[in-house]
């Protein structure tokens, strides 16, 4: 699709919050290197897994930012760093103007109420020995939001119905529920704290297609009802396109492209984004038969020893000599459309 039509369509679809709302999360030059150690008594780092290597982006209030990429690209680590589940090697994470990386555990407690996470696997993220009511009620008890147990039970029922579950599920255990129902419990638990910002880490990936659509609709309804901001981490590009206002693409610890959703999908600029989009099969045999499939050669290199220069250059069809030497600048080619490739635009 041409640039004009994409831009026109982007202009037609008003996206609440985008470009207008205030910045809620501002990630600046985030770096997360995990050391690989040798030795038992005297541990020394022999190498580093460069999981996230200099990533910057901002999320505005009410916005859903999609974060896509293949396994090992650092998208989950980015989410965990924002939540302070990993201590970032360097960089700043500003949440409502406050740098989370500088806070100690005690000062993080009130912040943690505002940022919640929904995990991928609805089987391992719920304690099998706790009743659903206790799972959802626990954060309210821990943070002393509702100390009275009867009041808490009422709130749990309310949350269950908000998430489309029968309140009587509160007395059941996770094994009595299906995957889709468990994921709704995970969502109810995240909502229990009245958060402003939710990180959805592959929140619908483990679900069957018919159930996946139910949960996506629920997440969208909740976003509108409670004015939530999402960081939607996923590898399924069609789902991300559906739910996001803006989308960021990561590859091997780096951000390669960031744009408004329709602009990115209609007019991808980075060669990696292009092969990624072309690899997604479309559920229509006629479209598939006519579509050009750009197949990318080779596999993702190891993040321990990523390629010099542009990390994508060994697999890139456009690559020229300078790509293996200079790290490409992440630059704004058009208003709101950022790309890390000097050869396009």
């Amino acid at each position, binding site marked *: 699709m041409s640039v004009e039509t994409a831009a026109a369509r982007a202009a037609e679809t008003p996206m609440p919050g985008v470009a207008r709302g205030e910045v809620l999360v501002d990630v600046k030059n985030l770096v997360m290197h995990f050391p690989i150690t040798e030795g038992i008594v005297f541990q020394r780092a022999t190498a580093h897994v460069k999981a996230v290597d200099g990533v910057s982006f901002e999320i505005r209030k009410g916005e859903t930012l999609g974060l896509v990429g293949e396994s090992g690209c650092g998208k989950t680590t980015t989410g965990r760093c924002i939540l302070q589940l990993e201590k970032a090697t360097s960089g700043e994470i500003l949440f409502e103007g406050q740098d989370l990386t500088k806070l100690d555990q005690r000062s993080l407690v009130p912040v943690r109420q505002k940022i919640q996470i929904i995990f991928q696997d609805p089987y391992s993220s719920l304690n099998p020995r706790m009743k659903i009511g206790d799972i959802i009620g626990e954060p309210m008890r821990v943070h002393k939001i509702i100390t009275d147990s009867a009041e808490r039970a009422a709130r749990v029922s309310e949350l269950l119905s908000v998430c489309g579950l029968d309140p009587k599920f509160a007395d059941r255990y996770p094994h009595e529920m299906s995957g889709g129902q468990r994921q709704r419990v995970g969502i109810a638990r995240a909502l229990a704290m009245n958060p402003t910002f939710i990180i959805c880490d592959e929140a619908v990936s483990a679900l069957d297609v018919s159930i996946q659509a139910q949960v996506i609709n629920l997440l969208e309804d909740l976003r509108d009802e409670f004015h939530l901001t999402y960081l939607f981490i996923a590898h399924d590009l069609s789902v991300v396109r559906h739910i996001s206002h803006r989308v960021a693409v990561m590859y091997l610890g780096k951000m390669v492209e960031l744009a408004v959703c329709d602009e990115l999908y209609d007019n991808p600029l980075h060669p990696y984004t292009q092969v990624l989009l072309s690899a997604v099969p479309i559920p229509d045999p006629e479209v598939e038969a006519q579509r050009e*499939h750009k197949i990318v050669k080779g596999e993702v290199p190891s993040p321990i020893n990523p390629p010099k220069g542009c990390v994508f250059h060994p697999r890139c069809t456009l690559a020229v000599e300078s790509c293996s030497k200079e790290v490409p600048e992440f630059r704004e080619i058009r208003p709101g459309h950022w790309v890390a490739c000097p050869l396009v635009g």
Partner: protein
Amino acid sequence: METQGGYLSTLLQIEGLRTQFFTSAGTVKAVDGVSYTVEEGETVALVGESGCGKSVSALSVLRLIPDPPGRVVDGTIHFQGQNLLELDEEGIRHVRGRQISMVFQEPMTSLNPVLTIGLQLTEPLITHLGMDDSAARTRALELLGMVGISDPKRRLTQYPHHLSGGMRQRVMIAMALACEPKLIIADEPTTALDVTIQAQILELMKDLTKRLGVALIVITHNLGVVARYADRVNVMYAGKIIETGSARQIYHNPKHPYTLALLRSVPRMDQPRKDKLDPVEGQPPDLTRLDEGCAFRPRCRYAAERCAEAFPPLEPVGNGQMCACWRKDDLAGPLREAS
């Protein structure tokens, strides 16, 4: 299409297959009266959600259902004229890997972690084809080259943990092709892989099966993969095939409300974004508590009284397409409008 011209012979014919699991919670009717055929060189897709019986029906073909708790209780599976269910253990061993081979979902768990790639790849050649070591080695190198693995000599001495997920799946495909089988059953072959690697593997399998004339049963829940791949599509729900037809028929002219609902519930990248997705409401049924009616009825927006009385038979609706729905005739109009 060639396969409907009738000049290709039927390779696999499954009739009235019933596979059940006898558990403490009751009898699970995992596969409940499934019939379909695979022609020579054809790619057939089995599509459906978790627990619909697609994997179990394929495992039944190779008699890989663990007994107890599971058992094929009824039906016939004719492969090149021979009923696989009547073979003894020795007989089925000659079919497995030799005439019908499998590619499993998890390349990590389906390769033996303590044996080298070379040993695992030459084993079927030595057992089934009676090759000697050096001939098997030469053939193994050839196979690795065929599936696009670089430096095959070194790979033969490596262990599965040395390889990435995509490479392991390539090794699995090489193993499946080793004895030049007539049929490969691929159970979610790309589900565990990243999307760009998935595209590589799909392209490889498509190319190899076409070139070598191998028939393929591909089991998947990914409707996009099916569209890129399959000649014929069988849609399963709660242990039964509820619709079957060519890929074009299934995607462009679905006759069963479930097929349509499934297609409509996935967001599509080639279409404008919708405000809301259109999910299939409700939960999949409990396979231990199925009644005699249509299993999709509680989630079906077109359900009528008759749907509770008996399960609708799979009947032709024209041009080789078949559908199991009582209301298939009066729904033709509404479904076409909705799709």
